[in-house]
C-alpha cells in the first residue's frame, strides 16, 4: 500500500477542484503517477483511486483504455514510431525494425537490457508532412532515416549514467493468441 510519494499524492488530491467533477482528474492524476514510477502498477492505480475517493476498478478501466498509459514497464526512453499510412508509404516499417535492432529488442514493448529503451509502433501522430517520424522523450523527430534514428539512440545511450532496469513482475497475458 502506498507506492506514490506523499508529494505526488498531495498533487493528486489538489486536482479535483480544477474540474467540475472528480472523475476528470483521473487522467491528470495517472500522468503524475506514471511520471513518478514509470508505469502504472495496480498499487499505483489504487493510490490514485484512494486519493480521488474512487474505486480502483474505475481507475484501472481508464488506464487500460488509453495507449499513453503503460501498465507494463517501459524503457526510460520510449520510441513511439508512427507506422500509419503516411509514414508507412515512406518507409516506416523498415525504420521500426531498424530501431528495434538498434536498441536490442525483439518485440514491441520489450525493454532493452540496459533499461534505457522500448519501442512501440503507434498510429498517426499528426506530423505527416515530415514522414517518417516518431515521438521520443516528449518531442517529435522528423524525416527519419536509419542514421538519424541511430544518432538519437546513441545520444541517449552515452551521456546517460546507466539506468537500472525496473523490477518487472511477470503478468499473465489476458488474451492468448488466436488458435488455428
Amino acid at each position: 500500500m502506498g507506492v506514490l510519494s506523499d508529494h505526488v499524492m498531495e498533487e493528486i488530491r489538489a486536482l479535483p477542484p480544477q474540474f467540475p467533477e472528480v472523475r476528470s482528474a483521473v487522467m491528470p492524476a495517472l500522468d503524475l503517477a506514471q511520471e513518478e514510477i514509470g508505469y502504472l502498477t495496480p498499487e499505483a492505480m489504487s493510490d490514485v483511486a484512494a486519493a480521488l475517493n474512487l474505486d480502483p476498478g474505475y481507475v484501472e478501466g481508464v488506464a487500460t483504455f488509453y495507449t499513453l498509459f503503460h501498465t507494463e514497464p517501459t524503457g526510460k526512453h520510449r520510441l513511439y514510431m508512427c507506422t500509419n499510412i503516411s509514414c508507412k508509404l515512406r518507409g516506416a516499417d523498415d525504420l521500426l525494425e531498424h530501431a528495434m535492432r538498434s536498441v536490442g529488442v525483439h518485440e514491441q514493448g520489450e525493454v532493452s537490457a540496459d533499461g534505457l529503451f522500448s519501442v512501440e509502433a503507434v498510429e498517426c501522430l499528426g506530423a505527416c508532412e515530415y514522414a517518417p517520424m516518431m515521438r521520443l522523450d516528449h518531442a517529435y523527430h522528423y524525416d527519419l532515416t536509419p542514421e538519424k534514428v541511430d544518432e538519437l539512440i546513441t545520444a541517449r545511450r552515452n551521456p546517460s549514467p546507466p539506468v537500472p532496469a525496473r523490477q518487472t513482475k511477470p503478468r499473465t497475458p489476458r488474451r492468448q493468441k488466436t488458435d488455428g
Partner: protein
Amino acid sequence: MAELRGTTNGPVLTRWFGTDDLHRIDVYERLGGYVALRKAITTMTPDQIVQEIKDSGLRGRGGADFSTGVKWSLMPKESAVPMHLVVNADESEPGSAKDRYLMENSPHMLLEGVGIAAYAIRSHQAWIYIRGEYDLPFARLTAGIEEMRAKGYLGPKPFGADWELDIRIFRGHGAYICGEEGALLESLEGKRAQPRAWKPPYPAQKGAWGRPTTVNNVETISTVPFIIDRGAAEYAKFGTEKAKGTRMFTVSGHVQRPGNYEMEIGKTYRDLIEGLAGGALPGRTIKCWWPGGSSSPVMPGDLLDTTTDLDGIKNLANLKDHPAPPLNMGGRGFATMGGSGGVIVMDDTFCAVKAAHRLLQFYAHESCGKCTPCRVGGNWAVRAYDAILSGNGGPQEIKILERVQEGLQGGRCLCGLGDAAGWVIASSLTHYRNEYEEHALHNVCSAEKVGMAANA
C-alpha cells in the same frame, strides 16, 4: 523547431505564417492579432457574432462540414448551469496534421478564436482537448494562455468588459476515438472514451458534465478571428457559391513536397497535389489518393480534377467511368468525402491491399469496443486481410470483407469510426478488386513488382 512545410503568407489562416516567433503574443499582436477578440467582446453582442459567423458560410473543418454559426445558435441563451466551448484538438485522423501546424505556429490565433466563440455561446470556461502526443502545441498553447492572462485578456474583465473568460487545456492520452464528439466529452469527464449514443438531449443541451456544450475543431475556431476582424463578406469572397472560405489540407505520402497547405475551397485536388505539393515522385504514377484522411473513401489517381468543396466531392459523378463502391452515408451512396483535409497520396509502387490492411489495423486498434459491428467487424476484417496477404486466403476472405463492410455502414455502428472502416474496405475493394484477387487467388502482388522495378 523544424522548418515549416506548407503555406506561409496564405489568404486567411496562414496569413502571418513565416513570421518569426509568431507564437509569441507580442508578435501576434503587432501583426493585428487580438483586434477581433477586443472588437467582439467590447462592441458586439453574442447574437451578432453568431450571425456574422453564419453569414460567413464557415463550416466545421473537423470533417462534419456543418455550419458553425448554426451550431452555435443551438446553444441555450440562458442556462442555470455553466456552458462550455470545447475545442477538439485531438487531431488523430491518419494523414491529417493541419491542426498541429496551426497550433504550434500560431497558437494565439486559436486562443483568440476560442475567446470569441466562448463569448458568442455565452460560455465563461472553454476547454481545449488536445491529444497527448502533441507536446509542442501543448506547450505553445499553455504559454499562450499565460501570456493572455498576463495581458488581462483572460480573467474577470477581458478588455475591461464584464465578461469573465477562462481557457483550460485537457490532455488526451492516446485514443483516436477522442476525435469523436461524444467520446471526447466522455474523456474530458475522465471516463473511457466511448462515443455517446445521442438521443435527445444533444450536446447543446447536455454535453460536458451534463452542461450545454459546443464542440468545434481547431481550424474552425482559428478561422473565427479573421471573420470577426474583416467581416463575413471578406471571408465569403473565398470559395464557391455554396462552399465558402479557405481550408487547410495536409498532403502526405508519395508527393514531392508534403506539407500543410491553405487553399481556397472549390479548387481541385490536382491544384493541391500536383500544384502545391509538387505532384508524384519522379518517374512514378499516382495510383490513388485519400481526400480527407484515411476515413474518406479512396479515389483512383485519374480523378484528381475533383473539386474540393465538401458537398460537391460526394457527387457520384466524380467517379466518371469507375464503378461506384457500395458506400453508404445516411442511406445514400457517395463518391468520397473531404473529411479532415488530410490528403494521402499513394503511387503505383504500393499495394492497395496492403494499404487497406494497414488502415483496417488502425480502425480495429482504435475501435473503442462499445458497439458490436465495429468491435468485431474491424478485427474480423483484419484477420481476413491477414489471410489474403499471407497467401492463406481465398474467395471466402473476399466474401467476408464484402460482408463486413456492409455490416459497418449506414447507421449500423454507434459512431463514424465503424462507417469509416467500412468505407475503407468498400472503396478499396471496388477500385482495386484485381489486386485483391491476385493476392487471394494467386498469392501475387503486382504492385510489389512495380515497386521493385522503380527501385532497381
